[in-house]
């Protein structure tokens, strides 16, 4: 079980009211609720664990095949399969509390109300340290469109969630938009304490032998190193446009990747697809950040945030 190494570098960051012992959390959906990875890394030593998206009563997700590999990336169409908020409350969150992890719960909904219901179901438990509201779900109230692509829907759903909790609320943005800063501003104006970006880019892959899409659902979300340049660009654009802290992600697998995101304006970072390549990626990223800071005379990681020249 890998541990972050000792250092004098100050690693703690504040993500919109959420205290993180270091800037590294997990990207929702790639780490379940941490238990599966606990043979490999000490999840209590991560900045936080972000859990898989949860809905009120659970969803069964999409048909198989659900993934495909692409150059330096992968497509997924898991379809937000989850057993519902009750299961999370009874099994995963108590375990995370017990091992001493900081917990960010990723919240999903097919309607605006469902987001609120999920938060209300969790808010009194004392088992949640922050929410990450994933507004990239295909949504009925937004006419089947992803709500995260329309500033008005974003304002509405984020505003409703804001009323439901006083805990730190991170809003997670989709990159599949013309102008990410417009969406970011809408989320902040409706009360987001922090923004998380990016979710996956919509993509597709085809099996030319069978003349069929690689994914049963035809399209899926692209993640991994391939998307890193797009993610970094959006973090930098949003950093210049809003005043809340950012949780950057998209292709991060090394300390150097994380430092790029922090220089572009991220206060903390999430490791997603890289966990699949390397199950100790989260701790390796923390150690890589420490290496960078020590080698470059950085005494506090916060010095890196937005320090691009």
């Amino acid at each position, binding site marked *: 079980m890998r541990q972050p190494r000792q250092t004098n570098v100050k690693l703690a960051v504040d993500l919109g009211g959420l205290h993180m012992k270091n800037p590294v959390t997990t990207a929702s*959906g*790639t*780490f*379940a609720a941490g238990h*599966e*990875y606990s*043979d*490999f890394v000490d999840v209590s030593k991560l900045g936080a664990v972000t859990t*898989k998206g949860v809905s009120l009563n659970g969803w*069964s*997700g999409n*048909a*198989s*095949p*659900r*993934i*495909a*590999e692409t*150059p*330096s*990336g*992968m497509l*997924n169409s*898991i379809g937000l*399969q989850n057993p519902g908020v009750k299961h999370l409350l009874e099994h995963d969150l108590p375990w995370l509390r017990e091992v001493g992890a900081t917990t960010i719960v990723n919240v999903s909904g097919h309607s605006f109300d469902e987001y609120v219901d999920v938060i209300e179901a969790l808010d009194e438990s004392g088992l949640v340290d922050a929410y990450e509201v994933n507004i990239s779900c295909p949504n009925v109230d937004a006419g089947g469109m992803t709500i995260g692509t329309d500033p008005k829907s974003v304002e509405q759903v984020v505003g409703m969630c804001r009323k439901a909790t006083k805990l730190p609320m991170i809003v997670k943005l989709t990159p599949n938009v013309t102008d990410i800063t417009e969406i970011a501003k809408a989320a902040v104006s409706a009360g987001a304490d922090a923004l998380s970006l990016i979710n996956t880019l919509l993509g597709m892959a085809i099996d030319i032998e069978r003349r069929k899409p690689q994914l049963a659902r035809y399209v899926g979300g692209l993640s*991994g*190193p391939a998307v890193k340049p797009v993610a970094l660009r959006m973090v930098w654009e949003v950093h210049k446009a809003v005043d809340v802290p950012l949780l950057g992600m998209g292709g991060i697998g090394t300390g150097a990747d994380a430092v790029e995101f922090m220089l572009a304006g991220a206060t903390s970072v999430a490791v997603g*697809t*890289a*966990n*699949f*390549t*390397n*199950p*100790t990626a989260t701790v390796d990223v923390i150690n890589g950040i420490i290496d960078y800071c020590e080698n470059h005379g950085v005494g506090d990681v916060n010095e890196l945030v937005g320090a691009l020249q």
Partner: protein
Amino acid sequence: MSALVNEVARIISNEPIGPRLHLMVLESPTIAAKVTPGQFVHMKVPGAPDHILRRPFSIYSRNANEGSVEILYQEVGTLTRFMPSLKEGDAELIGPVGNTWTGARRYKDGSCTHALLVGGGVGAAPLFMLAEQLKEAGCPTDVVLGAQTKEALVCRARYEALFGCEPSCATDDGTYGRAGFCTSLVEERLSQGCLSDGKPYDYLAVCGPEPLMKIVAGMGAQAGVYTELSMEKRMACGIGACLSCVVDTTMGKKRSCVDGPIFKAEDIVWG
């Protein structure tokens, strides 16, 4: 499930042994010590950095003393076509992953008295450690193997050496054993009973292409034999975290990596 490791595993050898079939031996002492029949390793193939996903391969055999494991792999896509070029280097193996065939446990608790193992193509490999286990336990066990050609029947000799007699074989092109699919051999065995004493089988383990497994599962159900399958789905994490690899079962979607790969045939909802 015992703890998983991510072990740096030196490639000891990597040789072609049949048409598009290769045997790779890896130095992986922790996994070699722990692995049980039917489990697999999730391999980071070295030298292919544009491929970010690992690939799952069943353990064909292990040598716990030497600390090595063997995998038998078939060229089907990008990485399995690239792997034969690896003459040295370190793979990384997550393992041993997954549950195990229940044959040996069932033999001990009496619910299995006669076993039939059916391996189609490279599906013969994940059954071999089960065969060893059943043999050691003393369970009367028969084996049916199918392949496209004689040259592709690469596991035959090992089964023969283990049991001291030939497995029943079928080849698609008739170059060895029964001509055609191995399903007719399975039907024969199920109706005639165990080769040693003619008693009916009460444990059937199948590994191979999904269409084959579906047919054999149907035969097992009809014959009222408890049947297990190894389900192979595309995997990302390989350890139960990502829900890439789910199988439709009567209890809902199950992760083939850690809830399987071995499933009761009767639980599977075929697509």
